[in-house]
């Protein structure tokens, strides 16, 4: 399969180069919000929404404003500001258009602004020289990979809560151990021959 084909991009971003377990982006919310499965799935849905929209906008900005004006070195500043503004707009839009969805996702949206996965995807897309469609698909795939891994971790943590964990390992250490085992499992995907 060719490097640029959409199926290749979606599988490699979601599974092979999983954003959390092999690229280590978005670790904070991965460790912090994974206490219950319900919250994790809501956060995952919000992340899918925000990353897809932001990678589209970042790609448009890069191709039509930064590149023609020869300002590509400003990409970090521009992207982070646009993402922050975008999250605010998405939040206001959802609040107006569907209060039920806002109730489910609302509190997670501001948390996503400082999620490094959002900025990371925008910058990786630029590095890989993806076009508009490819950027959106890569963003969507990355966010799906994030949702998969945070939901898995949350389900495992719900079970760990009922077990007797040595005192020194309670809290963060046992979660990191779980993540290490998940990461080992996910390295299996690198054997996929696409």
């Amino acid at each position, binding site marked *: 399969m060719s490097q640029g084909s959409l199926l290749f991009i979606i599988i490699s971003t979601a599974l092979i180069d999983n954003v959390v377990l092999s*690229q280590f*982006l978005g*670790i904070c919310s991965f460790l912090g919000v994974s206490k219950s499965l319900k919250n994790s799935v809501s956060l995952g849905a919000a992340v899918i929404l925000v990353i897809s929209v932001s990678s589209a906008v970042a790609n448009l900005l890069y191709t039509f404003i930064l590149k023609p004006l020869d300002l590509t070195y400003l990409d970090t*500043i521009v992207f982070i*500001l646009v993402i922050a503004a975008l999250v605010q707009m998405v939040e206001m839009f959802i609040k107006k258009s569907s209060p039920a969805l806002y109730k489910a996702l609302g509190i997670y949206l501001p948390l996503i602004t*400082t999620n490094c996965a959002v*900025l*990371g995807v925008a910058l990786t897309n630029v590095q890989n020289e993806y076009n508009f469609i490819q950027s959106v698909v890569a963003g969507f795939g990355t966010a799906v990979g994030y949702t998969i891994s945070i939901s898995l971790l949350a389900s495992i943590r719900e079970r760990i809560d009922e077990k007797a964990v040595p*005192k020194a390992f309670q809290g963060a250490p046992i979660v990191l151990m779980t993540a290490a085992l998940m990461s080992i499992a996910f390295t299996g995907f690198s054997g996929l021959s696409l």
Partner: protein
Amino acid sequence: MNKYVERIYNGLWKENPTIVLMLGMCPTLAVTTSAINGVGMGVSTLFVLVLSNLIISLCRKIIPDEVRLPAYIVIAASLVTVVDLIMQAYTPSLYDALGIYIPLIVVNCIILGRAEAYAGKNEPLLSAADGLGMGLGFTVALIIIGSIRELIGAGTIFNHTVFVSRPFPPIAIFVKSPGAFLIIGFLIAIINALKIKNRSGELVNGCDEGCMGCSFAQFQNPQAAAAKSTAAVKNATAAVKAATEQARTDAKKKDGNVSASSGKGENK
């Protein structure tokens, strides 16, 4: 203790950003495949942290409260762009090794966390010292984690070969992604065990809501904000109560004095 030294000690040990506060975990996990990468990431973050703390502290009276976070982000992003260009020019191999994690210093929670918690409220030189301490604490933690991973995973430290096949052949998984989670998990567990043994301090537990929960609790987490404001209201009402009581007792005393003096006057 000198207050500047105190800030540096605070960042290095007491509130070490990596192993005590668990901030900035993304770069910590990602770039510590070798000790030298740890140094590169640590020093570039240190540079951004000192300057951003200094500039934010200098501007703290100009920046309106409502837009302080975007302002902080712009300051940090400009500094990160500077670091990015400098590293691209002078240390190309390190630049390639660290890759996307250099621009991502912008969203490192340590930077915004210190801006929000310290630099936005304190004088410039103290804030710079705070940034220096936090940056040093981060660098030292990265070097320790990087050295352990490089030693177990490749048998080298700072690219000097320590062992090849004895006592054990290098375990490659420690320089791959699972090793990062394992080593940091064990480090935190060891610190916890020491704390349990000495019965001192709270266990390292990370933040419930991740970095953002720590640095922006009152700003972005409505529940925490509500809890904080009710606490503030309670404090205020308590203060008002105390003040009124004080005033009452004062008034009583005064009345007493007045009546006493008036009594004296009558006696005369």
